């Protein structure tokens, strides 16, 4: 009996390993190995044209510390995330709660708002490059001019460029989060809400004390995805502003691309990539620990 059981267990373990084999193998080759390599590259003077010019220790990191552009890039990345994440979360949660999940209007909005999500990022960025044209030729400025506002040269004025990029990005991804939140709202335990109502909870109180805590796991999940997504913005930047004006929309990911493939400094790009990795790592650890605290039905 005991022997049979452990044989069963061995069989299950073997099946388990077989089941995770493809994923873990791919993970090893396509994630872990390159990750180790990027650390190695960051200690080398490597150039796409000139090849590897040898181990240079922490030279790339020294350059990094003195590189004003890098710190500008870091700042821009934070500004971008601080623009996109709260705006996206608040808007999508508000829409999901305001519209409910099943009303007729909610269905229309749900469809319409999902259209940018299924449009490729490049297509969306191309269209928004036109919409944000300066002068009165751009549709957005044209509409503003109808109400007597002279719109800025959006993508070519420092300050406005980041704003334009944030807006186009939020509109692109809002639909997915609205959908997820609508699902979460739909799954709210009705008996708990009902109990709250019977106890005479006001609407704001119902929201802050009951709905919000119950929605927290969803919110955190969406937040993780949105934060990491915002750290990765590439197509929007490349196509709409190319990092300008004055580097005001140059974000970390685009800086890596610039250093590696425009100026061919592979080694230096690797050092910047390591920084990005560390940032994402820290963010993820913070978010996962929040998530553990907020969610009760996880094992």
């Amino acid at each position, binding site marked *: 009996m005991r022997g049979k059981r452990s044989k069963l267990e061995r069989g299950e*373990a*073997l*099946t*388990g390993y077989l*089941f*995770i084999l*493809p*994923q*873990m193998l*791919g*993970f090893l*080759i*396509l*994630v872990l*190995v*390159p*990750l180790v*390599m990027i650390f190695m*590259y960051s200690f080398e003077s490597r150039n796409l044209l000139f090849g590897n010019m040898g181990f240079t220790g922490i030279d790339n990191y020294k350059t990094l510390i003195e590189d004003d552009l890098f710190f500008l890039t870091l700042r821009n990345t934070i500004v971008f995330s601080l623009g996109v994440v709260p705006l996206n979360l608040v808007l999508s949660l508000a829409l999901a709660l305001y*519209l409910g999940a099943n009303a007729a209007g909610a269905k*229309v909005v749900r*469809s*319409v708002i*999902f*259209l*940018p999500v*299924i*449009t*490729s990022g*490049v*297509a*969306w960025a*191309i*269209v*928004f490059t*036109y*919409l944000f*044209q300066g002068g009165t*030729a751009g*549709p957005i400025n*044209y509409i503003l001019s109808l109400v007597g506002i002279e719109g800025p040269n959006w993508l070519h004025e420092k300050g406005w460029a980041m704003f334009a990029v944030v807006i186009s990005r939020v*509109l692109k991804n809002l639909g997915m989060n609205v959908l*997820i939140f609508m*699902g*979460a709202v739909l799954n709210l335990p009705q008996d708990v809400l009902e109990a709250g109502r019977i106890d005479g909870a006001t609407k704001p109180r119902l929201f802050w004390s009951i709905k919000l805590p119950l929605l927290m796991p969803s919110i955190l*999940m969406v937040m*993780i995805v949105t934060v*990491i997504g915002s*750290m990765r913005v*590439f197509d929007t930047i*490349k196509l709409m502003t190319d990092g300008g004006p004055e580097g005001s929309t140059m974000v970390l990911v685009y800086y*890596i*691309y610039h250093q*590696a493939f425009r100026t061919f400094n592979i080694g230096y790009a690797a050092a910047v*990539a*390591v920084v*990005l*990795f560390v940032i*994402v*790592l820290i963010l993820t650890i913070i978010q996962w620990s929040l998530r553990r605290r907020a969610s009760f039905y996880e094992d």
Partner: protein
Amino acid sequence: MKTDRNIAYNIIYYIVIAAIVVVFIYPFWWMVTNSLNNINEIFGKPTLLPKSWMWENYIEIFRVQPFARHYLNTVIVALLGTLGNVLVSALSGYAFARLRFPGRSALFILLLTALMMPIEVTIVPMYFMMNGIGANDTLVPLVLIPIFCSQGAFSAFLLRQHFITVPKELEEAARLDGLRPVGIFFRIMLPISVPVLSSAAILAFLSVWNMYLEPLVFVSSLDKFTLPLSLSNFNDTYGLPQWNLQLAATTLSVIPVMAFYLVFQNKISNAMVTSGMK
């Protein structure tokens, strides 16, 4: 009194909805109408309808670039990438949720590092690796990345969370019927998980559909381009964009997915809503 307020609420409700519809439809409307304009009209005063109805723009895009080929490439990559992603992550998601083997949690946590790792971090060494195996300038990296990099880990995570919630009794019963884990997985678990599998598939598809940096780095020949590269490549000899063609091509790239979505939107929305993404 109360009904007055209700009417007011209703009016506001419909105004909000109308505003949202306008904001989200206008970019598409603008794109389609201007794809039928000539270059100068695009930068004239915006109008609601095309000024010259240049349908030939839509023929021209196939002349300027092998656009049909780019379309095909994208479809191939999207299908293989999505399919591979769901298959691989369903296997591992189930194993991590339900099969007991030594090192299970450690390996799962290790896998989660991929979930948060942007491809941008590792794209440079990956470029040299792909070079080493001669996979650069093929569609191979574009298929492998969505299967195994962050999107793959994401699907595995999503599916693990789902398989954990499946009642244990279901498995016990199947086990008593003599089914082994493989049988349980294919006969019981997969069929009952269609909504979650489809939302993983939708998300994987979208991530492939949006890929831009990856083809930019891994693909160089014109006949291996995917749509995002193709769209940003509508330039004349000296780099001046051919705006109307670019918009026509963009329209063509958007329409089929949009049609697919509008036809199946209830199924898609329900899959996303009920998969309990949290």
